[in-house]
């Protein structure tokens, strides 16, 4: 693979990105010309010797004398001496496989446990991940997670958390509750909280939930007393919120608002500190509209999501395309998109994308101090952007399935919990995970975006026995060049974003 990518931005500046250097360098038209010659196989030394004194004519840029051309040739040689042009091979780097020991180490450091308290919900939102548009989840049967299952899961993890393989000092562990609507099984939540408190562990625990707020008022004392981080799903005003409806089809906005205001009025400090809103963008709302609504009513900026395009049922595609809205496009329709973008900033997917680009390609960003000290030359990676199983979180579904995340198809479980106990074997987890990664590995070794892949392997079709031949984000050299150019163009439009992101936004 060619480690040197030329990108030309909208403003017409040409940059060279190089994987070995891991930086962008501005290039002069003569250098672009030389790189083009080298790519076509010309021997530059010979070519320069034959170059006349008047030099060369480059279309759109003019004439450049021999001396100037020779200067850029010397710069080219400097780059060559620094291995900017040595062939790059990704196969070795992406050949990483998880071992049983890796899984044990990960389990000892799980810092996020999410319980699906129930698959039942008191709403019937149109775009729900478990609703009519999607087809990759276990059938919703209004089951409730039994505390004994949650307890078994916690006890299993507690053993791991106390082991010396845990790498944190007084590990802070997030316990999340998900659903359906988690508050419909608030009993379970109370039992889990109580169980953990009674254990008096060295670790600290932080509780969170994602809720539609309908049952917040009646449970707010419990939630506030345990300092729950609360993410409330609300799409804006009554009209915006039109897809969040009761099972009889009536709108739920009034009832939701009643609960939210009750919480805000009773516990204003908690509300300010611990409550966030999640807004889904669709054809009934807009970025500008929701921004104003939440600023005015709650002095908050909501997190903006889009309706997920993963797992859409074939017969629902048309309808889905109709309601789907893209954050960037919606933002562009605002009266003053720039001012909005400046305020919403890292909550916007476009800005977060820019943060990722800078984090990966500026050559300045390191995850932690160890990254600064050691070379990553012989460190291997698994292909795709998938997290190693349980390294981000451990999710227990209402059916007792142990999964790495609550947003993936329910067929991708690594273990189970039942009356007999927890069935999660490190060796089996490793084997299963490696089988998934082996399906796509060959494709990733020629992909230029492999270092910044955002594909989650569980979103690809893994059921067949054959390796996968298609990846939705595969990028060849040309595609990657356009990709980088588009981000650089954005930065050229807003140069102030670079120092702002470097100073303000921390990715963890």
């Amino acid at each position, binding site marked *: 693979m060619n480690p040197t990518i030329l990108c030309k931005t909208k403003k017409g500046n040409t940059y060279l990105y190089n994987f070995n250097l891991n930086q962008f360098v501005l290039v002069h038209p003569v250098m672009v010309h030389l790189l083009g010659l080298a790519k076509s196989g010309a021997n530059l030394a010979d070519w320069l010797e034959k170059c006349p004194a008047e030099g060369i004519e480059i279309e759109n840029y003019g004439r450049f004398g021999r001396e100037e051309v020779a200067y850029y040739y010397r710069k080219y040689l400097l780059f060559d001496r620094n291995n900017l042009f040595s062939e790059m091979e990704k196969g070795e780097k992406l050949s*990483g*496989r*998880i*071992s049983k020991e*890796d899984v044990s180490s*990960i389990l000892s450091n799980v810092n*996020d446990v999410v319980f699906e308290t129930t698959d039942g919900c008191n709403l019937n939102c149109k775009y729900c991940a478990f609703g009519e548009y999607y*087809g990759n989840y276990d059938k919703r049967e209004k089951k409730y997670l039994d505390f004994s299952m949650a307890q078994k899961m916690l006890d299993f993890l507690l053993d791991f958390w106390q082991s010396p393989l845990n790498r944190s000092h007084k590990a802070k562990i*997030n316990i*999340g509750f998900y659903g359906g609507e988690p508050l419909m099984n608030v009993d379970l939540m109370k039992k889990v909280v109580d169980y953990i408190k009674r254990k008096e562990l060295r670790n600290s625990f932080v509780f969170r939930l994602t809720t539609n707020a309908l049952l917040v008022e009646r449970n707010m004392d419990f939630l506030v007393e345990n300092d729950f*981080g609360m993410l409330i799903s609300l799409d804006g005003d009554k009209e915006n919120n039109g897809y969040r409806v009761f099972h009889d089809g009536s709108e739920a906005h009034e009832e939701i608002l009643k609960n939210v205001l009750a919480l805000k009025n009773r516990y204003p400090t908690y509300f300010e500190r611990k409550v*966030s809103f999640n807004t889904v963008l669709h054809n009934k709302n807009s970025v500008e509209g929701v921004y104003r609504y939440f600023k005015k009513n709650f002095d908050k900026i909501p*997190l903006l*999501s*889009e309706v997920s*395009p993963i*797992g*859409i*049922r*074939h017969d629902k*595609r048309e309808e889905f395309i109709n309601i789907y809205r*893209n954050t*960037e496009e919606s933002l562009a329709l605002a009266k003053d998109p720039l001012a909005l973008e400046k305020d919403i900033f890292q909550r916007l*997917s*476009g800005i*977060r*994308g820019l943060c*990722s680009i800078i984090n990966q390609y500026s050559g300045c960003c390191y*995850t932690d101090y160890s*990254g600064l*000290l*050691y*070379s990553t030359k*012989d*460190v*291997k*990676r698994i292909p795709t*952007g*998938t*997290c*190693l199983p349980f*390294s*981000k*979180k451990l999710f227990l579904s209402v059916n007792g399935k142990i999964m790495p*995340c609550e*947003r993936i198809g329910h067929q991708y479980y690594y273990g189970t919990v039942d009356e007999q106990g927890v069935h999660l074997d490190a060796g089996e987890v490793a084997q299963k995970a490696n089988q998934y990664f082996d399906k796509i590995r060959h494709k990733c070794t020629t992909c230029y975006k492999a270092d910044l892949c*955002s*594909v*989650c392997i569980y979103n*690809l*079709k893994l059921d067949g026995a054959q390796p996968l031949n298609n990846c*939705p*984000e595969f990028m060849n050299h040309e*595609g990657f060049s*356009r*990709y980088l150019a*588009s*981000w650089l163009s*954005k930065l050229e439009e807003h140069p102030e974003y670079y120092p702002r992101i470097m100073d303000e936004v921390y*990715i963890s």
Partner: protein
Amino acid sequence: MRKLSLANLAQNELQKNEANKVKGGLCTCYCAECTCPPEYRVEYRIADKVDGRVFVSAG
């Protein structure tokens, strides 16, 4: 480079550290930050406008 120069001494120590470090191993720090509260999946919509939208069907 003088043998006992501080620069040389430090360089040798640093090279020793690098050599001592456990070779290979699996990179555990990278992933696409797909979920986790309150963050959410990173999207690359600007790039998608260049390459066209992508939907993955349930099949």
